[in-house]
């Protein structure tokens, strides 16, 4: 079909009909997606004088940010938290995804995935606020623990709080993506491994995980991107001390009017994410290609 389409395509040099459908998104995305991102990169070289931005090309903001200890503290903290979140989400999600991929009927899986999609469309902010009151010193969890004589434990304004928030954000997505990649593993290969005398655990390690590797890594990558860029959890549940990079962006933009410096942080975040994404995808597709 595609070759047929192509040949029709060549005949008419300008096809108004085709262009009407193809062009709007190009214009739109260039104007409102690529434009803003490029401008943000440019902005990181601008200067601010008397609370006014001056278009320039100076390294000042970069030098300033890179020489500050708090920037690097934020960077390492954000990177560390996002990595931790990725590892935890991957590990927690795997048994559930495994069960959904192999132990339930297609129908059940469809329903569970539908339920897992719901949180994407419910207010993340309200859910985090809800965690805030659940995890508080006199909140639901501590109140329950006090009945059995435990606690109270401090969960808010800790790394634990931040991670609970990250999990709220990432876990459903990681479970869904892992389930899809596991469900696509050829069941015959698993059976073959079993017939060859592989123990269940060994089958998981040496057959299922390598086969589902791409999907598992993509799931982890999404978790990293989401956690790395989230400001709500570290702010409301983690107490933002020290602030993560997204909080740094907000503080710099909203209070100081230092947009160029915020842009530096944002560009550094983008660069980090692009590097991580390429590394992850290279890892995900490495063996596949050589097979």
């Amino acid at each position, binding site marked *: 079909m595609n070759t047929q389409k192509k040949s029709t395509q060549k005949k008419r040099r300008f096809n108004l009909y085709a262009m*009407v459908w193809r062009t709007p998104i190009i214009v739109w995305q260039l104007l409102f997606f690529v434009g*803003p991102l490029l401008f*943000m990169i440019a902005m990181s070289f601008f200067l601010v004088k008397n609370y006014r931005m001056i278009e320039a090309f100076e390294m000042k903001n970069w030098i300033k940010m890179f020489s500050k200890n708090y920037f690097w503290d934020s960077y390492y903290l954000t990177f560390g938290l996002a990595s931790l979140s990725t590892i935890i989400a991957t590990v927690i999600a795997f048994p559930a995804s495994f069960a959904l991929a192999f132990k339930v009927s297609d129908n059940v899986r469809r329903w569970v995935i539908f339920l897992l999609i719901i949180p994407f469309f419910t207010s993340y902010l*309200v*859910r985090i606020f809800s965690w*805030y*009151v659940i995890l508080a010193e006199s909140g639901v969890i501590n109140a329950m623990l006090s009945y059995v004589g435990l606690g109270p434990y401090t969960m808010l304004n800790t790394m634990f709080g931040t991670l609970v928030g990250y999990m709220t954000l990432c876990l459903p997505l990681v479970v869904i993506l892992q389930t899809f990649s596991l469900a696509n593993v050829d069941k015959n290969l698993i059976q073959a491994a079993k017939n060859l005398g592989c123990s269940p655990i060994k089958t998981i390690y040496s057959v299922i995980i390598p086969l589902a590797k791409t999907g598992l890594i993509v799931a982890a990558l999404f978790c990293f991107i989401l956690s790395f*860029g989230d400001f709500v959890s570290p702010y409301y549940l983690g107490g933002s001390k020290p602030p993560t990079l997204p909080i740094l962006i907000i503080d710099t933009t909203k209070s100081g009017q230092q947009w160029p410096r915020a842009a530096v942080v944002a560009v550094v*975040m*983008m660069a980090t994410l692009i590097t991580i994404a390429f590394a992850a995808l290279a890892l995900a597709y490495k063996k596949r290609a050589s097979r």
Partner: protein
Amino acid sequence: MKESNTLKWFLWIYIGLIFVFIFSPIIFSMIFSFNSARFPTIPLESFTWHWYETIWNDSDVWQAAKTSVIVSSCTAVIATALGFATAYSDFRYNFRFKGPYLALVLLPPTIPLIILALAMLAWFSKIGTSGQIYSIVIAHSVMTAPFAMAIIRLRLNQIDENLEAAAWNLGASEWRAMKEVILPFCKPAIVSSLCLTAAVSFDEFAVAWFVSGLNKTIPVMIMEIVTGNIDPRVNAIGTFVFITSMTLVIIAQIFFMTRPKEASAQ
């Protein structure tokens, strides 16, 4: 087989716990929205409509709700229109640079919201469109068009590849075939896409907060309430937001599940 049974139970309980984790904030928020206590915890105090009455009588909430409805419905229409055009282009044509084209369309969801927010704020200020309701609409449309595109593209995957040609063959021009065949065929996906993009826009706060100026949407308002104090009004607004989004998602799901029946009839 005893062993595998235990394993099965273990896995089900495990999945159950994950669901408890995912849904407990939603459920607690709903419960506390009817609880009279100023600080929401257990044991629960008495049942009350107080928080709902408070927000009902709050003109700021109404103003924000109005903004939210305008933003999310405009976003839904723009994102779905863009998504449809793109999905159709991808379905119908092969062309050079199709890879970069699709990347350009599908990339926005992979950019952290906070970065998009800053970039859009700066860009809109530069081109003089910041702080308006339509600034939020533009930003949200960029973010949600990929979802619209994906939903409609999946629907087009199910089309009989000759259906459009059959319409031309019976005397319909390309434009007419679009109106008489492609659009009706995609209608369920279009409704679905309208609902989902509206739901995403209705909940989005980061970008809206940056570019909205004085035009607060509901989530931005929630954020301002939440910052610094615990106010059970949030639970009431939150429950209202949940129900709105959920309704949209369920409608979307119902339409999305509509499959062409012809396959089963053959």
